[in-house]
């Protein structure tokens, strides 16, 4: 166990046990998002797409003029 953090570590490699490729290759558990959180993320996503499209349209328009 690491004396600094209390995390389990391998004495030979000094890598934390969850730092090995074998460990990081295993996916973490999926988070459960509530309805409001999902709606908020979708709203943010839609806003980013719309605003991004506006910036690109303006840029392309300015190229032609």
């Amino acid at each position, binding site marked *: 166990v690491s004396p600094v953090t209390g995390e389990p570590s391998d004495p030979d490699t000094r890598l934390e046990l969850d730092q090995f490729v074998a460990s990081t290759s295993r996916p973490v558990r999926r988070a459960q998002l509530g309805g409001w959180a999902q709606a908020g993320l979708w709203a943010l996503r839609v806003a980013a797409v719309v*605003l991004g499209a506006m910036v690109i349209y303006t840029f392309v328009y300015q190229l032609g003029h």
Partner: protein
Amino acid sequence: MSRDGQSEAVALPRTPLTHEDLDRAQDRLRVYNARRRGRRWYLVWLLIGPGILAMLGENDGPSMISYTATGATYGLGTFLPFTLLTFAMAAVCQEMCMRVGAVTHRGYGKLVIERFGRLWGWFAAGDLILTNLVTLVAEFVAIRVGLRYFHIGAFASAALGVLLVAATMSGGRYWRWERAVLALAAFNGLFLIAALLTHPSAGAVGHALVTASPFPSGSLRTLLLLIASTIGATVTPWMIFFQQSASADKGLTPADLRHGRIDTIAGAVIAALFGIGAMVAGAALVHHGGGGLNGLSGLGFPGALRGVAGDAAGTLFALGLIEAGAVAVLTISASTGYAVSECLGAPHSMNDTVRGAAVFYGANLLAALLAAAVILIPGAPLLSISLNANVLATVLLPVSLVFLLLLANDRELMGRWANGPRLNVLTIAIVGFVSLSGAAYAVVSFLQVIHVL
């Protein structure tokens, strides 16, 4: 993996070590020995890297051109302290990236996919790939402008950038790559020297920093463009991907968080100093047609600086642009490689061999090749590409920041290293400010273009 479930981690069966594990173990052994022997400064040297690289990587071609354009348009005033504010915002966001990477040992794209699902992961990667490709074009533009000052053509600029990416990737070691790019990034300081050669008034700089005045005037769209562009010059989606993935790749652990913070804050301070250097150098042009300069169509800013402050200032500025573009080509193409391979579930470490992490290295090189091809197009609107690359990054940034905030607050992943309430309030304020700034430019400029405003 669970930070709250240590017994689960202890019970892991020993599996064969990979090339990546062995390389990382070498680096960790040096950190362990430095810590055990109390070699404080050597420990700092070993653990710095991702933070400084992210910050100086973001002092890239379009950012330095954006700072210079702002200085040339408005002189020294509100934008000087505003730039400091944006670097403070960047430090807050990048500290979270470093912490999440060090605690979970996973990159941003990989964590978003695993924790929130493939759809959100690919959205994030899509944003990143789009902004990275546009930004990479702007990096090659910066290299081209810098080299053009020395009468070297566009093809050499494209070849130089691509060769740099290929050369630095060939080592098969994160440590070597990081040190090579850090050495190159040190030359970002040329902007500061160029600024000093313009003999700026210390009183004017101090007055602008303290009073945030004079306030900018003129076209609303130009003002909003430069605000959004200045934010996008400091905090961007690629930095989030890069610093989290690089912190994990470097092998940082929770024991290294203090040094990770030193690395991030030092990076922010150094980058702010050099960024302000570019703005001060630009301000020397304010009474010499600065606002109307098309900095990239000809010799641009370096040539204009030579006319105002002498050959040395122009030469250093041109060399600075080459460095800024080159470092960012390396870091941004690396962040593209991390994002693509993390989302595809492919190996993604610089400690892996080219054959072992073919997708990672392939995406890294392909991004650079695509961007290099664009600057060979004659008559491309280079200044406009540079500024709009930053604006696009600002508009797409809030989504990346919200997911970063969710990850940094995830107690199942982060355990006792999760965000505290004060940091959350600060980060939410940053997300709001960035969102408003990006949206204001996008909406106002769009309405003007379609003749509603």
